[in-house]
């Protein structure tokens, strides 16, 4: 047996399995050992499925031994965020409201990973109902780890969020794919904080069936991986039109990322290099742009003039949709029921008051307000009109360039607890990511080195609607020119 190197990509692991250098069972056993070692420091997993994963791995090995061809992700371990439905384990979305809920079906994205030969090894922590940017809002206490999920590069800091558990594990380990969800940056920001590649697909490219809804016109399931190639392979496994999600659609994802033409016209949106972006992050972003320019890319300054309204627009649209989506958790249809309710209204209020955490309540209240009679025109309808302008900015700019490059997060990972008491300061973390969700366009965060404190910096690549392959082809090109994506934090003792 030759185990893959610690920093090996998922595709390298798959190719070793296909070549018979290592078995699926050996990969799964070794990965679970590694994840367990990190769990005590990071608290990234809320459940592991060791026995089931080993059983599936042995079955895969038996298939390969019979001469069946290796599938695209054969033997690759993967995790799903706690808000993505899996028949194994709980799908709690990080909320007391769904504690103990076992989904009757796998999410379409999970089924895609399983069909491609990947092996589900666990569920990862997240902010409650994916509402947060630090993974500190989860109602779950990760077993065998700290109370809140930590950053593998500095355990005193947050991993980002809301998909913080998957990002933290991806940042600490190679080999695997981790499914997250992104409503306003919840894949890209934690990818930047943890030094991994994370992709928010084009809206509709991946079915939302089985994803616990937050903001339905914004939500997308997407993968974390060590490399753009890993993320692309996972995207191929999970993307496509699905009868269970009427907003899903097919996008072009040619068989091999190497066969996708590398985009050559890079746009640098001036509104994304503003006050609040740390000098080190701006410097590393410009370094990525310069590296690609030296490789032959044409670099063009562009403008997305409505960017400054994106975060305000997002606050209105996302909370409005959240208040609607979370209305179902009333203690009758979904969620634990309040004790001694008295009457029906008290039952609803008590069940929801007990079941939701503080941040979720804030968003439900705000969303209810902006949709209420007398205020909907002033807030919600206006936000939709602004959203169309934000989307129009992207459509126009992609007539001139192929991919935009900008920072993913304006700041480095912050300390645990530092922003808990100031929700608006947390919302500000999303300022550079929300516009891609509002416009529905694909965006990837790639590692771009470390800052002077040894913390990862992420750079964001944004593409036109449906141009996920181009975005990841450019990410892949950058990763062929540097080794930022290969860096891993030191193994815990």
């Amino acid at each position, binding site marked *: 047996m030759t185990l893959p190197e610690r920093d090996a990509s998922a595709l390298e692991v798959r190719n070793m399995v296909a070549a018979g250098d290592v078995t699926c069972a050996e990969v799964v056993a070794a990965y679970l050992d590694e994840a367990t070692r990190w769990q005590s420091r990071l608290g990234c997993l809320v459940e592991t499925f060791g026995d089931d994963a080993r059983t599936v791995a042995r079955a895969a090995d038996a298939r390969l031994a019979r001469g069946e061809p290796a599938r695209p992700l054969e033997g690759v371990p993967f995790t799903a965020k706690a808000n993505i439905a899996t028949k194994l384990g709980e799908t709690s979305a990080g909320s007391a409201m769904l504690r103990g809920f076992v989904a*009757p079906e796998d999410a379409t994205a999970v089924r895609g990973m399983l069909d491609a030969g990947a092996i589900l090894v666990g569920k990862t922590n997240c902010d409650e109902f994916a509402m947060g940017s630090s993974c500190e809002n989860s109602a779950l206490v990760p077993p065998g780890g700290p109370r809140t999920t930590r950053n593998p590069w500095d355990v005193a800091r947050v991993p980002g969020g809301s998909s913080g558990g998957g990002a933290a594990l991806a940042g600490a380990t190679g080999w695997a794919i981790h499914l997250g969800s992104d409503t306003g940056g919840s894949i890209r920001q934690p990818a930047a904080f943890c030094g991994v590649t994370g992709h928010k697909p*084009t*809206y*509709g490219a991946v079915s939302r069936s089985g994803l616990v809804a937050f903001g339905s*016109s914004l939500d997308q399931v997407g993968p974390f991986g060590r490399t753009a190639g890993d993320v692309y392979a996972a995207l191929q496994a999970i993307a496509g039109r*699905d*009868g*269970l999600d*009427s*907003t899903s*659609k097919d996008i072009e994802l040619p068989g091999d990322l190497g066969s996708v033409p590398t985009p050559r016209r890079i746009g640098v949106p001036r509104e994304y290099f503003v006050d609040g972006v740390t000098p080190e992050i701006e410097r590393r972003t410009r370094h990525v742009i310069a590296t690609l320019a030296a490789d032959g890319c044409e670099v063009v300054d562009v403008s997305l003039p*409505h960017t*400054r*309204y994106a*975060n*305000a*627009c997002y*606050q*209105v649209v996302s909370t409005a949709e959240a*208040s609607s989506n979370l*209305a179902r958790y009333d203690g*009758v249809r979904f969620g634990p*029921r309040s004790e001694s309710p*008295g*009457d*029906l*209204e*008290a*039952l609803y*209020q008590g069940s*929801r*008051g*007990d079941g*939701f955490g*503080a941040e979720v*309540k*804030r968003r*439900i*209240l*705000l*969303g*209810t*307000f*902006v949709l*209420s009679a007398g205020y909907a025109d002033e*807030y919600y309808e*206006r*936000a*939709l*009109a*602004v959203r*169309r*302008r934000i989307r*129009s900015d992207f*459509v126009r700019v992609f007539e001139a360039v192929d991919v935009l490059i900008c920072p993913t997060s304006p700041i480095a990972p912050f300390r645990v607890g530092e922003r808990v008491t100031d*929700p*608006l300061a947390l919302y500000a973390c999303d300022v550079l990511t929300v516009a891609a969700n509002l416009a*529905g366009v694909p965006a990837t965060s790639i590692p771009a080195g470390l800052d002077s404190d040894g913390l990862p910096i992420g750079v964001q690549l944004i593409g036109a*609607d*449906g141009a996920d392959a181009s975005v990841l082809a450019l990410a892949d090109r950058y990763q062929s020119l540097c080794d930022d994506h290969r860096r891993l934090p030191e193994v815990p003792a």
Partner: protein
Amino acid sequence: MSMLRVDDGEIDGLVEHFSRVLDFVELLGEVDISVGADRLPVVDGDALRPDVTREAGAPGGPLDRSGLLGRAPLASDEAFLVPRVVSRRERGKAGSE
């Protein structure tokens, strides 16, 4: 309207939070939405599915009764079983026996 019980001790904090968020959201008022409003859809694509009947068991198709009831935590042969919502005393008051 949001059917949330909010404790008295939480109210001041929520009021301050909403004041700050709504002040921030006022920024949207700067955008002149009365002119040049484009008709781009908010999201791309046609979210309406074809109006065709789907077979039971097919993706997006209906579940049969036993399949549906089998997903409930508690069910009889023909219905979901749920805990009583309103007490007998409440029902008596409403005269809805």
